[in-house]
């Protein structure tokens, strides 16, 4: 029967010449082109083009409603001498590094805890993710209320316990404000880190722990010499994402402080919004955004090496 089918197909092909249209319908590359078209069109029009345009704008003195002229590095030179910009770079680095370290430490700890056997496990794990599900702006508004200078429930509780005598001015004082926004960011980021690392933890073979227990390893040694090395690749990827999105954060700061007090919490993203959209200096704002790109590239390279290492560990050929 199969011979018959082959036969008739062969005969058909011999009789009918394939038209150009049929050729196009079957040709891989052409089909690939048509299938890719919608995605590529959107990504080129609204991602690649603006990305290039942003770099170009940073070399011009464009303002809202007026296309600028090329002024080479003038925007960057002016930013270099601008104290507010320097503060924002310092804030961004501080915010990213401190928040990432805490997100990693608490996230990993939480993942290890969640990996234990306990009652209501599924429900607890589902609840952990809620801060990640709720839109950042809406939870940031809850934090705004928690950090209120007069009616903060945190200040009230600490006063009742007797730890402090006057209300803490969470968002009004320079360093308090910095720690407060970092706390809110860590709060929002921990669930993502914890759940993805938990998924990684579950791929660690239990026989390794059994062998280590027989050899007399302590809990810490098991974590240090089994869990941690096996998790490294996924940690690299998760932390790259975390660093990337913390570095370019905007929403949280905008809701909580709008960069204040005295620019103490301005990140590069919020500063670029203020200068470009509110102040109208598109060129200058674009220069601030463009200045973020080198940092992002560094993060992406780290991620790439993390991925490479994972492939090597899994013994896969590079595809």
């Amino acid at each position, binding site marked *: 029967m199969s011979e018959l089918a082959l036969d008739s197909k062969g005969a058909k092909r011999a009789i009918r010449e394939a038209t150009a249209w049929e050729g196009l319908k079957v040709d891989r590359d052409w089909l690939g082109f048509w299938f890719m078209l919608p995605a590529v069109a959107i990504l080129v*029009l609204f991602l690649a083009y603006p990305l290039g345009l942003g770099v170009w704008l940073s070399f011009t003195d464009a303002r809202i409603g007026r296309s600028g002229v090329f002024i080479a590095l003038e925007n960057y030179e002016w930013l270099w001498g601008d104290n507010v910009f320097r503060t924002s770079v310092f804030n961004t680095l501080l915010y990213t590094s401190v928040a990432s370290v805490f997100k990693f430490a608490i996230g990993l700890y939480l993942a290890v805890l969640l990996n234990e056997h306990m009652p209501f496990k599924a429900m607890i794990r589902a609840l952990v993710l*809620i801060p990640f599900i709720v839109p950042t702006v809406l939870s940031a508004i809850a934090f705004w209320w928690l950090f*209120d200078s007069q009616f903060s429930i945190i200040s009230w509780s600490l006063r009742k316990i007797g730890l402090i005598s006057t209300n803490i001015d969470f968002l009004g004082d320079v360093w308090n404000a910095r720690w407060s926004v970092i706390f809110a960011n860590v709060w929002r980021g921990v669930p993502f880190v914890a759940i993805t690392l938990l998924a990684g933890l579950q791929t660690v073979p239990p026989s390794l722990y059994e062998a280590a227990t027989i050899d007399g390893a302590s809990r810490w040694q098991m974590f240090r010499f089994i869990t941690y090395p096996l998790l490294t690749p996924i940690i690299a990827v998760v932390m790259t994402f975390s660093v990337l999105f913390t570095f370019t954060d905007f929403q949280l700061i905008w809701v909580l402080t709008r960069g204040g007090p005295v620019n103490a919490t301005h990140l590069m993203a919020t500063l670029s919004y203020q200068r470009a959209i509110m102040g109208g200096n598109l060129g200058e704002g674009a220069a601030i955004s463009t200045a973020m790109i080198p940092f992002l590239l560094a993060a992406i390279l780290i991620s790439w090496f993390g991925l490479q290492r994972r492939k090597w560990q899994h013994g896969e050929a590079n595809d």
Partner: protein
Amino acid sequence: MTDALISKVVDAKSVLIGSSPTADHSEGMSYLETLPRRLVLLYLPLGIIMVVLLFPFYWMALTAIKPDEQLLDLERFNPFWTWSPTFKHIAKLLFETNYPLWLWNTMMVAVAATLLSIVASVLAAYAIVRLRYKGARWVGGAIFLAYLIPPSILFIPLSTVVFQYGLFDTPFALILTYPTILIPFSTWLLMGYFKTIPFELEECALIDGASRWQILTKIVLPLSVPGLISAFIFCFTLCWNEFIYALTFLSSTQNKTVPVAIVNEFVDGDIYRWGSLMAGALVGSLPLVILYAFFVEHYVSAMTGAVKE
């Protein structure tokens, strides 16, 4: 075969329900653990972290239903509970402001952007994984890189682009720009799903004379429904969460989305604004939390899938 197909969801399920390898291990060695030890090392720290993670939501919900006079008087009333809940704030929100309109805007933009992205990503992911046209590998890598470009470095040039295309202050400004965030993510996720579908199925169909389009709609898509659901709800959540584009590209009150409207329209000098602010935040979060409650596994699979692939 079906095992391979649903393995993704099962994987996500095990993250949640956790009949994980370590479950055997804790059974095997649990004799080493005593209850007091577990209390101190496990339940206590876990309890503290959970309380910190969930307290803001409790506080949000409580503030939304507290009467005004109890809100600011922490001395006469116990601030952690109220015996006289009121729906005044929520009613005011729904009937005296544009809130229903903002909810509708958010919903419409999120659904439209998500559908557009899913269609584009299904086609792109299928082409990259199965058509394997010339340079498919490079395109796959480029799409992964696009995933890493955050909105906060794009919004300034995009605002001029949106203006040039005449989209400023219309829902289309968001419907067309959100996919730049969603397509890379969902393409990457769907590529992972499509790879698990056996090649032999497609070969059979090709021999039977099916076109690529028929293969996609009649074989590949029905088999990757869990992946499509994951991609859909995750994209929907990202849309709902998006802020900076909506803040920059929309200006008139009736076009705004919930996050932008809450930040810009509710913040007045009123000392009693907290009740309605928290009610707004609560009502804005509920649709996502409800969706999440129904699709927990798909969320987890989308999250871990995007990282693992």
